[in-house]
């Protein structure tokens, strides 16, 4: 955590705490007040306030011209965000569920993500693509994915995954101010929605003033000496739960919250592994060709000397099933993380 952030955060410790959705909305509102060129487009973002509360209250302050409900036409409105951004505006466009990216992928990966490069840097696309991600509530195969690795794999997009209200606000300020396209993936289970209870943890103290969290700065959410657990999103909290259980057995894990996948803070990961010698990577995305493999490779490339053991915990390579016993099986749980930590240490 940068010193500036620490000062901001500590200055507010005694103050209010916010849900992750309120923190996100606060950053968006701040940027919209400061810059008339910022606007928000999406399905059910106006009167409804976002199905996952991502725009709650913004319509009342900013009106329909700037908080725009749009037809169910993702190709058109995500592409319109690209076009408006290339004109110099700062649109925020929302995918209600990240799973819906499929109907508009060309605008995302061939236009939004590539126009800067293809233009030799003469065009830029300062937009934010927000998307709800994640499972754990039995919404089945088409509404439960995170797809972290998919977006992070394709070059040209910065990819942000907050796990707390504090991080959500600072990362959103940075996302809107960034001159490149930013994919901002918020986990439904962390937002603090009434009908989808959040775990303890994402609701944190949040400074009232604006602040930015630089992309590419992973955050050590828990310091520990024995095993490094690298993760993101909801699974930061599951890893912290596992840490408490493991601590009872004298196992001291360090939890590294990536916060952004692109850029990736490999220094923080490597420093932690240099200290612990044991790496466990936990991801709510599919196992193969994804985040877990990338993190492990990035450590291995830096040198294998520090690395005594590696484990990964991720969704197996199956679509996410509906029924509770099967979804619980495939989405990594606290016990899965603890088991991986023990395995990395050679305990059985």
């Amino acid at each position, binding site marked *: 955590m940068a010193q500036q952030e620490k000062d901001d955060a500590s200055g507010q410790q005694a103050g209010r705490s916010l849900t992750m959705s309120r923190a996100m909305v606060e950053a968006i509102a701040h940027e919209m007040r400061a810059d008339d060129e910022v606007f928000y487009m999406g*399905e*059910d973002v*106006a*009167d*409804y306030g976002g*199905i996952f509360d991502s725009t709650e209250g913004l319509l009342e302050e900013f009106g329909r011209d700037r908080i725009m*409900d*749009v*037809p*169910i*036409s*993702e*190709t*058109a409105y995500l592409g319109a965000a690209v076009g408006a951004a290339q004109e110099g505006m700062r649109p925020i466009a929302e995918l209600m569920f990240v*799973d*819906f990216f*499929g*109907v508009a992928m060309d605008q995302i990966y061939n236009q939004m993500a590539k126009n800067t490069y293809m233009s030799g840097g003469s065009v830029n696309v300062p937009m934010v693509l927000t998307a709800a991600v994640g499972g*754990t*509530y*039995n*919404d*089945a*195969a*088409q*509404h439960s994915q995170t797809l972290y690795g998919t977006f992070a794999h394709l070059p040209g997009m910065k990819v942000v995954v907050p796990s707390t209200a504090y991080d959500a606000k600072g990362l959103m300020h940075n996302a809107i101010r960034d001159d490149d396209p930013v994919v901002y993936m918020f986990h439904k289970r962390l937002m603090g929605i*009434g*009908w*989808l*209870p959040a775990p303890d943890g994402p609701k944190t103290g949040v400074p009232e003033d604006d602040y930015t969290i630089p992309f590419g700065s992973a955050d050590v959410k828990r310091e520990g000496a024995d095993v490094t657990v690298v993760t993101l999103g909801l699974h930061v909290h599951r890893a912290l739960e596992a840490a408490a259980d493991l601590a009872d057995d004298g196992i001291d894990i360090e939890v590294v919250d990536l916060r952004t996948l692109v850029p990736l803070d490999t220094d923080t990961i490597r420093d932690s592994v240099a200290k612990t010698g044991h790496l*466990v990577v936990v991801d709510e995305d599919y*196992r193969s060709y994804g985040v877990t493999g990338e993190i492990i490779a990035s450590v291995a490339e830096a040198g294998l000397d520090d690395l005594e053991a590696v*484990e*990964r*915990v*991720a*969704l*197996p*390579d*199956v*679509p996410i*099933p*509906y*029924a*509770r*016993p*099967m*979804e*619980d*099986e*495939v989405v*990594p749980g606290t016990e*899965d993380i603890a*088991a*991986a930590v023990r*395995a*990395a240490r050679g305990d059985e």
Partner: protein
Amino acid sequence: MVAVNELQEMYENMVTARQYEERLQEEYMAGKQPAFDISAGPIPGELHLAAGHEAAGAGVCQHLRDDDTVTAPHRPHHIAIAKGVDLKRMTAEIFGRESGLSGGKGGHMHLFDPDVNFACSGIIAEGCPPAVGAGLAAKKRNTDSVAVAFLGEGAIDQGAFLESLNLASVQNLPVVFVVEDNDWAISMPKERVTDVENGAQRADGFGLQGMRVDADDAVAVSEAAREAVGRARDGNGPTLLEVQVHRRMGHFMGDPESYRPDEDKDAAEQRDSIERLESDLQAHGVDDETIDDLRSRAHDRVEEAIEWAKDQPEPESEDAYEDVFVNPPSGVTDNEPSTADTGGDD
């Protein structure tokens, strides 16, 4: 002219769908009170109910055979019932049970019953292209099967729908696109997202027939559907049929509907195609005893399906690893951290 026995069939399907969803609603809310947690209770996850839509499913599907294909969207129950999907196994699927249509893998938005060529997609308008594909197969094989894609009016702005209209039209395929227009795409009223009041006008730009009827008059829905399905079956090409329905529920269970004017919901509740069809039956000389029999038969069937479903076992957690492929490779691994324990497909 719709025959009396056809009216009775339609009525029974509509009543079955309404009663079924009222019972599902009760079961869904169990475990979600006083605090509504979407992941709690015997039916977790999203649940999209179709009260007010029944005439569209019943009026169209009564002209279909088992070998005709239907693709349904995220709000599929009334369509599935009218198409003849196995109600017990469908209910078990919704309850996430091992004997469900998909063994609990699909859930209520993803119902598949190949015995009657019924499939769903939870992604808006994405059932349209597969319906075009079913129509293409019928044409290539020179059968007289047809395909019907159901969608909501919110989906008519989606590329998959518009591209499908064009492909079906230019290939002269036996496809009917049925738009259930309930005036609302979740919180977005139709007039805010399209400049065309009558969605059937979309047909004009693609060279296919467009029709629009009001579900208040279930008989009119059936007559329009007879024409559209007949056109497809006779090799005379696709039709876009828009049916004005009424949304009596929220978009999904838990939808606060705070965006919706009270008068709008009241109006939807007052326009009940089931009540009107009952009057039509009486006007055709069907006595009250027969109507009561149809209702009680629907009731018994619904109760039987729900009781049966709740008695079925849950799937084993390891079942999650099966069915990714029909011919599974050996590489699908489970989440075990260290051992080389592979999934259930071995």
